């Protein structure tokens, strides 16, 4: 005996919500709403039922309904309230979606409402500070510079630590791109609807071998069936300026130091000018960002199309990025709604004008007593340059930073196309069975040129430069899976099985070369082409009992071409359990508590991305050709060489085992909600570059499965909606993460083994300041313990004899702190008062340390002159009075904890017109508002932990206009 239920779902503006999910609770009966928000569910068992309505970005609603057999019961309109605190109900997971309540893994979703506002050019910055356990550090202030993204710390030493990024079902290639600093720059943030971050293994294991560092699923905006076409215009204009410069001595201070401490030849080099080099190389920079999008449907065809243009100047002279993007998404439903086709195509065209960032360090170093231009010497384009006694160019001299910027034209063009077509077919004879085929591509074409005139000092010995390079990337994807979903009584289960094929080809063709300005080829590049392939089989089953107990089990068998036969495949299992405690009878009627769910998960994920460290063929005995410039003379001929390469025939997957326990909570109807997670991630068979036994291989460092590493942490997130009235709506969100990273094994070690040195610094070629040692955080600083005098001044060259051998040697170094913060905090708010809205985002890192490589190179007297030219000092010289470099003193390792306000945005809805269907909103925003830190250098937020030549993050003021009709 069954009946039907019909009705309409509306949003806050009383407009129909198309595409919302309407389900009879405890069954698989349900449907999606039509374009006007209406729905009809048939074959509903007669009697009392509960209808659950949910839609991304809205609070779900439960509504009791009594179904009469043989009739269609019309329900009153259901109004959904926009969800600003709770994360949405339908959650994007790998290969499909899951209901939030069924999710057993640690998953965080950030949708457009919660994105960081203001001028955001790189997509990842939309969620900076928004998700517990996700640390995003921009590479600096250059337009389009790459960010470092870490989810729950890095799980590898030498393999890639970046998360897998999947855009609309296409895992994108984030490996090195020639001519593009940040591959994500090639995606327009305005096209993005949600970010979903999969953090623990029970969530990520469906991505198997690529999931050890977490997965970020990016979903772009889609058209809506039946909705009228709407046009949105988004315009922003920004002005950026530097916040401060590196403190260095003024010309007069510098003259006085050289005159008091320098020798005769140094004094003789002093000039009479007063140049503030850092003021000269930076500028006020302008950015214009315009986006036009069209969303809705044409007839029955949902469509979204957008074009964007961004023109961003860097604050460093000459630096600029111009980006044009276009995207289109159409989502037809065919065959009586049994076949859904999603077609997404995104294209971007980026023109970069790079500035030589070396000019930043050179500006801090350049002798302030010298002029920018010489009066009488027209060589080198008239710029002042350091000369030898015979007035020839001093090739060792610090190059004039202005000449370095103005005489070098370094441009690139990159074009990227990412797209896919996805067929999702519900079988006519068996609607519980769904087949999904996804065909995707990610193509990149880039090329670049560098031109320097022959007279420029920076390329004087090469007689200028006229270099070109290019790169092609062709990445292909095929995914196919079948999913069977069934409800039997109070048991609901799904079974999914699939196959995935991905192929990556990177090609740097022969036409790259380095040449003099007149075109004489100095170095012709060898062609370079490389390929790798992944073939995977995966399965997932979910089981839910009474809407209270959920289980997710996944298994993925991944094959990678990067490993030898026999080791190509890795098996990655995971299981997650969830218990919705709130649904139990003893809590069901508690009003205070609106949600309580316990989750536990276990899983193994893999790592095979070792291309950066070892290439794509690390297990093959192979030879590489030498270039002509690296030939060897036999008699009268120069013979090109063939080099045998090191290889490891035993190479296999790195495996990370994750244990996660979490608690999702909600109080007061979701006005307070959040999650707490604790996790342990242990990586075994760590892929690390270590020294093989001497003489056993054809290299001195080889990628090997050796050792283990552990990350342990706690994450906490809190979203609150303390005020919710008609006029005023206030949302606050806060997240905190504590993570501890420790290397637990590096294979065989000896008591006095210091570990593997990493972290090259300026001031001594080949000097490293960090180390990977057992028992310590990866990349810990490895320094000598400075001894101080009674007045607290460091005593030059005096270090604690930590190994007690009576001598002060480099063996007295110890591991002291690391660049990785122990605690990261994010804090944001969205407030609306009538037509005004205000949003801000703040972040804090605690316990992160930075090696001040500026001071260690520029605060010692010996830094002023080495080879017949002068270099400026930083005022830290007055503190230390060091004569010689003390590069390894822990004095230079500084606490770089900080609190930063990334953004504050005020918006005003100017007016609505044309029957409330159009609106104008204006915004004003400031990016990088303030930073509170004890760090003495320019900026404490440096992911490598080594502060040297850092492109300053500017402060940006933005005015924006949003027009919709």
């Amino acid at each position: 005996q069954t009946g039907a239920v019909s009705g309409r779902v509306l949003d806050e503006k009383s407009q129909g919500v198309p595409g919302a999910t309407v389900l009879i609770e405890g069954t698989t009966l349900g449907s999606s709403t039509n374009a006007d928000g209406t729905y009809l569910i048939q074959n509903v068992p007669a009697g009392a039922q509960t209808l659950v309505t949910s839609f991304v970005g809205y609070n779900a609603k439960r509504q009791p309904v009594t179904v009469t057999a043989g009739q269609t019961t019309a329900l009153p309109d259901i109004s959904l309230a926009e969800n600003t605190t709770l994360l949405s109900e339908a959650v994007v997971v790998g290969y499909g979606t899951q209901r939030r309540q069924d999710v057993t893994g640690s998953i965080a979703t950030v949708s457009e409402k919660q994105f960081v506002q203001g001028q955001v050019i790189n997509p990842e910055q939309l969620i900076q500070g928004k998700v517990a356990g996700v640390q995003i550090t921009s590479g600096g202030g250059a337009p389009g510079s790459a960010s470092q993204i870490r989810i729950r710390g890095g799980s590898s030493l030498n393999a890639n630590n970046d998360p897998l990024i999947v855009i609309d079902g296409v895992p994108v290639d984030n490996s090195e791109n020639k001519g593009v600093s940040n591959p994500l720059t090639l995606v327009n943030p305005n096209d993005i609807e949600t970010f979903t971050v999969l953090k623990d293994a029970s969530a990520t294991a469906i991505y198997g071998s690529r999931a050890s560092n977490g997965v970020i699923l990016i979903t772009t905006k889609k058209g809506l069936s039946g909705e009228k076409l709407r046009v949105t215009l988004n315009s922003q204009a920004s002005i950026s300026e530097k916040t401060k410069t590196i403190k260095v001595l003024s010309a007069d201070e510098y003259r006085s130091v050289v005159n008091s401490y320098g020798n005769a030849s140094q004094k003789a080099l002093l000039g009479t000018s007063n140049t503030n080099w850092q003021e000269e190389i930076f500028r006020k920079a302008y950015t214009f960002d315009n986006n036009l999008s069209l969303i809705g449907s044409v007839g029955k065809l949902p469509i979204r199309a957008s074009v964007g243009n961004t023109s961003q100047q860097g604050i460093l002279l000459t630096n600029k990025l111009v980006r044009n993007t276009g995207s289109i998404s159409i989502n037809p439903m065919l065959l009586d709604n049994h076949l859904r086709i999603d077609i997404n195509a995104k294209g971007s065209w980026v023109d970069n004008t790079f500035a030589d960032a070396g000019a930043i360090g050179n500006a801090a170093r350049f002798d302030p007593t010298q002029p920018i231009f010489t009066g009488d010497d027209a060589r080198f384009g008239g710029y002042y340059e350091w000369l030898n006694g015979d007035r020839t160019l001093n090739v060792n001299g610090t190059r004039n930073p202005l000449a370095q910027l103005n005489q070098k034209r370094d441009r690139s063009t990159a074009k990227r196309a990412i797209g896919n077509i996805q067929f999702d077919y519900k079988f006519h004879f068996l609607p519980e069975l769904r087949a999904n085929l996804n065909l995707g591509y990610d193509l990149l074409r880039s090329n670049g040129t560098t031109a320097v005139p022959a007279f420029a000092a920076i390329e004087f010995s090469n007689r200028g430069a006229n270099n070109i390079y290019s790169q092609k990337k062709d990445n292909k994807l095929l995914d196919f899976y079948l999913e069977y979903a069934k409800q039997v009584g109070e048991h609901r289960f799904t079974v999914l099985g699939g196959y995935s094929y991905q192929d990556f080809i990177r090609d740097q063709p022969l036409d790259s070369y380095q040449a003099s300005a007149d075109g004489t080829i100095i170095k012709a590049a060898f062609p370079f082409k490389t390929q790798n392939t992944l073939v995977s089989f995966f399965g997932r089953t979910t089981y839910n009992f009474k809407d209270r107990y959920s289980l997710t089990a996944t298994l993925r068998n991944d094959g990678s071409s990067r490993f030898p036969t026999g080791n190509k495949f890795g098996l990655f299992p995971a299981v997650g359990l969830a218990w919705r405690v709130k649904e139990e009878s003893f809590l069901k009627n508690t009003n205070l508590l609106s949600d309580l769910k316990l989750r536990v998960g276990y899983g193994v994920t893999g790592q095979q991305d070792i291309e950066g460290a070892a290439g794509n063929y690390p297990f093959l005995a192979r030879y590489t050709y030498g270039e002509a410039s690296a030939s060897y003379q036999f008699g009268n001929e120069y013979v090109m060489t063939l080099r045998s390469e090191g290889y490891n025939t035993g190479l296999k997957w790195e495996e990370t085992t994750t244990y996660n326990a979490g608690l999702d909570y909600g109080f007061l109807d979701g006005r307070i909600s959040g999650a707490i997670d604790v996790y342990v991630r242990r990586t075994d068979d760590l892929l690390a570059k270590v020294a093989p036994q001497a003489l056993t291989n054809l290299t001195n460092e080889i990628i090997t499965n050796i050792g283990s590493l552990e990350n342990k942490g706690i994450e906490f997130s809190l979203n609150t909606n303390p005020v919710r009235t008609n006029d005023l709506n206030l949302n606050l969100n806060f997240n905190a993460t504590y993570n501890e990273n420790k290397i637990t094994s590096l294979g065989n070690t000896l008591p006095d083994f210091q570990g593997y040195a990493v972290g090259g610094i300026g001031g001594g070629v080949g000097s490293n300041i960090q180390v990977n040692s057992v028992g310590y955080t990866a990349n810990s600083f490895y320094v000598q313990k400075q001894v101080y005098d009674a007045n607290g001044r460091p005593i030059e060259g005096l270090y604690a004899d930590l190994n007690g051998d009576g001598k002060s040697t480099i063996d007295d170094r110890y591991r002291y702190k690391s660049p990785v913060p122990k605690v990261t905090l994010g804090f944001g708010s969205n407030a609306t008062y009538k037509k005004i809205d205000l949003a801000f985002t703040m972040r804090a890192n605690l316990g992160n340390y930075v090696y001040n490589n500026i001071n260690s190179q520029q605060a010692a007297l010996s830094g002023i002159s080495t080879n017949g030219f002068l270099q400026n000092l930083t005022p830290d010289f007055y503190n230390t009075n060091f004569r010689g470099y003390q590069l390894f003193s822990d004095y230079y390792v500084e606490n770089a904890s900080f609190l930063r306000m990334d953004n504050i945005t005020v918006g005003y809805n100017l007016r609505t017109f044309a029957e409330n269907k159009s609106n104008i909103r204006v915004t004003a925003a400031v990016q990088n508002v303030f930073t509170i830190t004890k760090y003495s250098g320019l900026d404490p937020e440096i992911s490598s932990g080594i502060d040297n030549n850092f492109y300053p993050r500017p402060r940006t003021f933005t005015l924006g206009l949003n027009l919709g009709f």
Partner: protein
Amino acid sequence: CVGDLDREPFNEVTSDVVYADPANYKMVLAKLYAGLALSGQTGPSGKPDLSGVDEGFSNYVRQYWSIQELPTDEAVIAWGDDGLQDYHLMNWTSNNPFIRAMYNRIAYQISACNEFIRESTDEKLSGRGITGVNADNIRKYRAEARFLRALSYFHSMDLFGNPPFATENDQVGSFQPRQIPRAELFSYIESELKAIENDLVDARANQYARADKAAAWMLLSKMYLNAEVYTGTPRYTDAITYSSKVINAGYMLQKTATPVSSAYGRNFLADNNTSPEVIFPVAFDGEFTKGYGGTTFIIHAGIVGSMPAAAFGMDGGWGGTRTTSAFFKLFPDTAADRRGRFYTKGQTLEIDNLTEATNGLGVVKFKNITSTGAAGKNLTFPDTDFPMFRLSDAYLTYAEAVLRGGTGGNAGQALTYVNELRTRAYGNSTAGNISASQLTLDFILDERGRELHWEGHRRTDLIRFKKFTTASYLWPWKGGVKEGRAVSDNLNVFPIPSTDLVANPGLKQNPGY
């Protein structure tokens, strides 16, 4: 589609493909020689052979020069690179990055030789259908590869005493090298050099820069001269035998001066490939063999203070290497002895501060100009070859072996050889010639300094004369104090780097470290 997981490289070639074509053997051999001259597959840098070290630092000749010269009276360096000052201060430990770089470079070179030697056996050649002239040539290549391996094992034995050991019979990646006692390694090198004597091309008959019989003889004679240090058993008679073979092979001292160079000085110029006295060079070229090691380093680093780079055919100095007053004092009269060329303007004789490039005298020896005064092809990367073995060394080896009691030679001949060097040094004048009574062992050591300074022999020589660690000869900053002091005898060999002690549990550290 699982078959697609067997991807093959596009630009690199697999080992099977390389050795199927006889033409490739020469390219692999060229890499073995280039292992001494270059740091990687791209000149001047890029695609390095070694990781974990600055590529320029990782070059063989640069490392060898540094480890043989910087701990001695002949050279100091100004730079503060991690561990570099430890050389002259004699303060090194098993964690020293420069010692590790030398060790790794030697191991790399030996491994690369082993690989080629393993792949070029007669059985493998015939198995690949390589016969006739091709096979004959490859047999010569293989002998040269064995020479290069012996040369590196000699360096390994000299520097590290009891290093790990592997031959072509050990397969890549699948064994633990044993530590070989110094005396046993000595016997191995000796047997190798004797075994290839017939396969090597006759002295002076091979292509320039390739090893011939004389190179093997010279290496043997140097081993025998130092045999007592390595094995406890003197082999001076053998030293005389093999240095005589070299001397009698037709080499001649360069005796003609030019308007821009003394006859002696011509051995260190951009056209020193024409020198009749070089037995085995490491070749460099401003266009085809470019790197930041080798003579690029030796010349650049040695241009300090106000030294005019252009006079060296270079585009600038690196303000690095100088010499000590102790070495300067080996030359009683630098005006007469053309080998003693020092740059003094703006330089101090005594060194107060090792890291100040104007402390200590500049050494004017290697240059990137030709004997007619023309600059080399490239002002950054010299054409100047590094003379690993020179006839002068054979003369002085002969003389010293005779003085130390070897038989088969005679004192008169020894004196003649020494005076031949001195006559040339004094501009074809006998004013500097010595008498038989003046030809003492101490004189030989000093004369080796004068004749062979900055050619990478000094540390070995000082150890043989028991003056490297002891108080019998002090130079500024020896042992870390300005006036010099004796140091522990264990410093006569370097420590096995801690990285390899960790990797290879079968190794025992040298005593005292």
